[in-house]
């Protein structure tokens, strides 16, 4: 991945920066220039909470080439408390521990390494919230 492409998304990937529509209140992650719910173009920045729950998940056994060394790994769709949904890996657990509605926390992790550009790419992954 080229550095401008990577750098642009850092606020979202590192800090979960989102935007809330000033007109209808919908929270957008990543931010958009126009709200898809009400067409407003006025937003305020919000930082997403790191707590959410699993809506669905899979275990990837046949990965893309740049994830060859990771497989098998878990991918889930997570809904955060603000209602924002995202796709991410779930780590530090076995697939047997997963369930729909299981609570998770978002953590900061290394996502992939691109040997050609030597950029180590970081972002969010989920871990199960343990009592």
């Amino acid at each position, binding site marked *: 991945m080229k550095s401008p492409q990577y750098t642009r998304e850092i606020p979202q990937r590192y800090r979960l920066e989102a935007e809330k529509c000033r007109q209808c209140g919908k929270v957008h992650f990543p931010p958009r220039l126009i709200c898809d719910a009400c067409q407003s173009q006025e937003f305020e920045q919000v930082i997403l909470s790191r707590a959410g729950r699993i809506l669905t998940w899979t275990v990837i056994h046949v990965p893309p080439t740049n994830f060859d060394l990771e497989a098998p790994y878990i991918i*889930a769709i997570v809904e955060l408390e603000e209602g924002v949904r995202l796709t991410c890996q779930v780590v530090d657990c076995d697939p047997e521990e997963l369930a729909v509605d299981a609570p998770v926390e978002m953590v900061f992790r290394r996502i992939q390494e691109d040997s050609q550009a030597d950029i180590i790419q970081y972002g969010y992954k989920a871990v199960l919230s343990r009592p």
Partner: protein
Amino acid sequence: MRDVYVIGIGMTHFGELWDTSFRDLFVEAALEAFGDANMDRLDSMYIGCMSGGLFVGQEHVGALLADYLGRVPIPTTRVETACASGGAAVRQAYLEVASGMSEVVLAGGVEKMTDSADVTAALATAADQEYEVYQGVTFPGLYALMARAHMHTYHTTREQLALVAVKNHHHGAMNSKTQFPFEITVEQVLASSMVADPLRLLDCSPVSDGAAAVILASEEVAKQAKGHPLVRVVASTQATGAMALHTRTDLTRLDTVEHSAQVAYQQAGITPDQVDVTEVHDCFTIAEICVMEALGYAEPGRAAALVEAGETRLGGSMPINTSGGLKSKGHPVGASGVAQVVELTIQLRREGGTRQVEGARIGLAQNMGGTGASSTVHILEGQA
């Protein structure tokens, strides 16, 4: 808008066609379509191709293919809506004839996927690169997320998913152009290697080379073309939805398919129960289940039971994917939407041989891109 007819159809064998080039695949399908139409006139072309760039390093495919078909200087444009590129090409050709701008337009679709490209990565470009693919998800993975949600919400079973593949292979075994023309069993599906839990290898459509072409024409021209019963395009629709799967309100539903189908039923003036034969985008077994529900063939959560009861098999009340579907026929992505129209035309002309749906008069083709962010629907009416 005026009436539009399918007057010629052609397609290559689908499969690993190492000896045939990208350009020759298309030319072979187009020449077959001209032979089938029994006429030579052509005013313009639209080519569905998802990723000539990533699969064979070739862009500007419209010009290349018009050149090698010996049809310069007619206008030729490539259209792209990921795996729905073929359906979008048919729609553009339909619009150009319907508008009165042209009399005869070819809609082609072509993809060459087995030239050692990184196919998983290339296909993944149909999802959100920054917010889905970046995290390591694959296309089988995205449909696996839908499958798990469907199984959780509606108690759809692993065996029911397998039955979709078994049924499509049963049909494909009767089609001489399929990549995998043989029967498979539920046990084989369940024993095949895991790709993205719960989807296994035999839940997935294959990586394929292939091309398909249909020639659309005005009524005046269609009536001059001799040799086949007329087939009219009575609806052509397209809908667009949220790009990332995770932003959909209901992960088990395909809103774009539902929308494109509803508008298509209105255009054609029919209800879903009047459709005699259907081709759907079964890129994965779960996709066929979700599409059936989006088309209104079953209430949400009820499609799998219809598959299990054999209703979607040849001889059932709503035969689906008589061609073998993407699963058995093969899925050269840009060609698939066009190949669906080829199959419907065969069925509506009553030229289907052993896989003919008896008395077929109305056919529906549904083609989608990504996890359904693009969907096209075509409804055809035969006059056989």
